[in-house]
């Protein structure tokens, strides 16, 4: 399994450069925690790594087919049950009948037949994170994964990430919460795109969810 390598990456959002000269490497079994104030470009960076927007400059390896993206919005359908939602994503990623494992892992088994619209915010979040395990991809990108999770769920999520790392996976997390993961932190404010700092600042505050 190859490491996640980022070389001289430049990221923009809506045409405004946010980050530049960004290089890092995450070896198999390692995680990286991205920090930086709101609007610095954490979400845009993760979207670029996931292949949803092209980089302004630089390279990302491996390609998007090895990367699983866990965004703020989890893509779960309100009128489908927990199990139906997970089975859809498992099937789409070519994993058959493997949802029992993640249902247990994220304590969703008692909720399996409940429609996603009747879940609480925290339960919904867990459902969204459970999808990551179904992608079968080595690199997890997680954008503020612990929003609306209680302490027990944060712990459960941290253990799930640790298990993924122990299996040779990699993870890049944008978070302000200390998950207790032994992972280096990368402060994005040092890679801020220079020429348009003032404009970028104002724009990014509104543009990045």
């Amino acid at each position, binding site marked *: 399994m190859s490491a996640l390598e980022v070389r001289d990456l430049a990221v923009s959002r809506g045409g405004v450069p946010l980050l530049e000269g960004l290089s890092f490497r995450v070896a198999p079994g390692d995680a990286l925690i991205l920090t930086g104030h709101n609007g610095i470009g954490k979400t845009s960076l993760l*979207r670029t790594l*996931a*292949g*949803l*927007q*092209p980089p302004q400059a630089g390279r990302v390896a491996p390609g*998007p*087919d090895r*990367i*699983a*993206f866990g*965004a*703020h*919005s*989890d*893509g*779960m*359908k*309100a*009128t*489908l049950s927990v199990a*139906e939602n997970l089975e*859809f*994503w498992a*099937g*789409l*990623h*070519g994993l058959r009948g493997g949802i029992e494992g993640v249902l247990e892992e994220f304590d969703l088994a008692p909720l399996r037949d409940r429609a996603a619209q009747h879940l609480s915010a925290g339960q919904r979040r867990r459902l969204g994170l459970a*999808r990551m395990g179904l*992608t079968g991809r080595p690199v997890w990108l997680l954008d503020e994964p612990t929003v609306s999770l209680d302490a027990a769920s944060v712990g459960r999520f941290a253990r799930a990430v640790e298990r993924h790392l122990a299996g040779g996976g990699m993870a890049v997390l944008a978070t302000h919460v200390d998950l207790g993961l032994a992972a280096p932190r990368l402060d994005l404010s040092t890679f801020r795109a220079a020429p348009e700092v003032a404009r970028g600042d104002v724009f990014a505050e509104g543009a990045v969810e």
Partner: protein
Amino acid sequence: MTRIFLRDLRLGVRAGGGFGLGLAFFLIVVVLVPFGIGPETARLGPVAPGILWIGALLACLLSLDRVFALDREDGALDLLATAPVPLEGVALAKAAAHWITTGLPLCLAAPALAVLLALPWPGHLWLAVSLLAGTPALSLIGAFGAALTVGLRRGGLLLSLLVLPLYVPTLIFGADVARRGAEGLSPLVPLALLGAVSLGCLAILPFATSAALRVNLR
């Protein structure tokens, strides 16, 4: 691809999925027309094919803004774009699901509703045939329009303005098939052209749709 198709069908028929909305709209339009232009058979008969086709076209339009907008809102579109399926396949599956939930019920209901508009007999059959051949093009063109406007808030009106002009060839040939059928002429020429429009849309538009989606995902 099949999974996306089946998921969209399931979502469509679940509560709030909008299944039947287009059909109900079609029914109301057809019922309203005799009130508007009078119940005489001699007056209704000649305009029936055109009215039925316009009704079907508007009913199709009604549910188009849901095709991609809902997936965009809840983030599923991002995840589909990163999933190991080609985005062209996603576009095709979604257009197909839209056709099954909107276009197909219209095809099946139209011959029965044509009675209300006093369409002369063999016209019913040809109306159903023309809708079967033409509504796939409506769904495919509509999905393309929906992909173009997916990033916009309240993009529904813009979507209508974009899509309706593109519906013109389908409407002309479709209504012509039904009209010729009703008048006892051979409808084969417009039917062949209608089929060509649908097949052309099928061949080209999934690629255009996925390109539009990619631009809007940035």
